[in-house]
């Protein structure tokens, strides 16, 4: 199997399982979707700090990065990197710095979409 195909399948599997787990929490623990999103971001951050998320990224690629736990991972890894470089001030700067592209894209595209589109309901 060519490496691209196997990486697509791995991403499908990892991303799918993360979403499946989130859906089970919504339906069985009766939590609101927004609360589950917050939970999973936080779990991703914790897993990242414990070094447990990196192997998932190595295996699943975007399958681990695209779902929200990956956002938590990005934040934590950014903080750790910045602490290593700059000491304690890395706590405040590193997270947002690593997530900057995603958040800026979200704000800018959100604004553009509001300019160009109207809600259809």
């Amino acid at each position, binding site marked *: 199997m060519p490496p691209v195909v196997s990486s697509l399948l791995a991403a499908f599997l990892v991303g799918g399982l993360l979403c499946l787990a989130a859906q089970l929490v*919504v339906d069985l623990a009766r939590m609101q*979707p927004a609360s589950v999103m917050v939970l999973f971001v936080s779990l991703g951050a914790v897993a990242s700090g414990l070094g447990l998320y990196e192997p998932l990224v190595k295996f699943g690629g975007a399958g681990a990065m695209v779902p929200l736990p990956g956002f938590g991972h990005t934040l934590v890894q950014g903080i750790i990197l910045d602490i290593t470089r700059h000491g304690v001030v890395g706590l405040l700067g590193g997270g947002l710095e690593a997530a900057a592209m995603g958040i800026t894209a979200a704000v800018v595209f959100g604004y553009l979409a509001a300019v160009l589109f109207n*809600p*259809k*309901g």
Partner: protein
Amino acid sequence: MAMLTAAEKRIGQQTLLFHNRPVILAVGSVVGPFEGRGPLGHLFDEVTPDSLLGQKSWEQAEVKMLEKAVDIALSKARMQPGDIDVFLSGDLMNQITASCCAARTVDRPFFGVFGACSCWTEAMSLGAVLVDGGYAARAVIATSSHHNTAERQFRYPTEFGAQRPPTATWTVTGAAAAVLTAGGDGPRITHATVGRVVDIGLKDPFDLGSAMAPAAADTIVAHLRDTGRLPEDYDLIITGDLGRVGKPIATELMAEAGYNVTPVFDDCGLRIYSDDQDVHGGGSGCACSGATFAAQLWADLARGHIRRLLLVATGALFSPTTYQQGETIPGIAYAVAIEGPDGGRP
């Protein structure tokens, strides 16, 4: 049944008796395209091509629907807005702005009412009081709801990809209006049972049917006790929007109180959409009971298919603030007894 003296305008704990039996002279209903595709689609006076009506926002579209419904009812009654003595209207918007803006256009003395989805029968009760008491010869009542204004205000932005649980109901996009007069030919309002707030302690804003069922049962039971009637004295007892979950719960609560309503009990929220419209729990919103009454039930009464109707709109009295603060969701229901023009049974 014993003869009542003219002085007895209140009977029992919660029921008002209208000796002069105000007439519902004419009705008007306007709905959106989704409702137009439902089982009652061919009965509504107007089905709009979309839910924006060429306006700049859903809220302004809701106002337009309300104004149209009033226009339709007035033209059927062969009246002008200037003939109206009082206008009563309510809706789901914060500060009932849809009704207030429509009232600006109607430009007659105005009472805004709020009862969440029970606005229709609340307005009807109060309108009947004014007409029966001689304070108005001609009253117009109206109500509206809009799926998108409700979603935006109570839940999520309309393009947000949230999944709805099976108990969630779908807010009807539409408006209804009725002309109440002291005289004339048409179905007559005989009683109104004023609901009290009933809170069974539920907190789920996606399962309002369960939250409102106790209030519906409470008001219907109070009505039957106050009037000394039985469920079978009515051809139909119909609630506003209890839906698939609330209706059987209310049925059982009333059975516990000694009343078997099953042969005559139905719900507007279960009539307005078909199963394949995938609305989960059923229809809801002020216009659910309003438009169903205006499109179907009024004609059934006028033509004699129904001789005596108990219309019970139900409301869930909450806001995003209250449920986010962990407050429970209280319910209320207003019941109005209406007879066909020939006056049903004595």
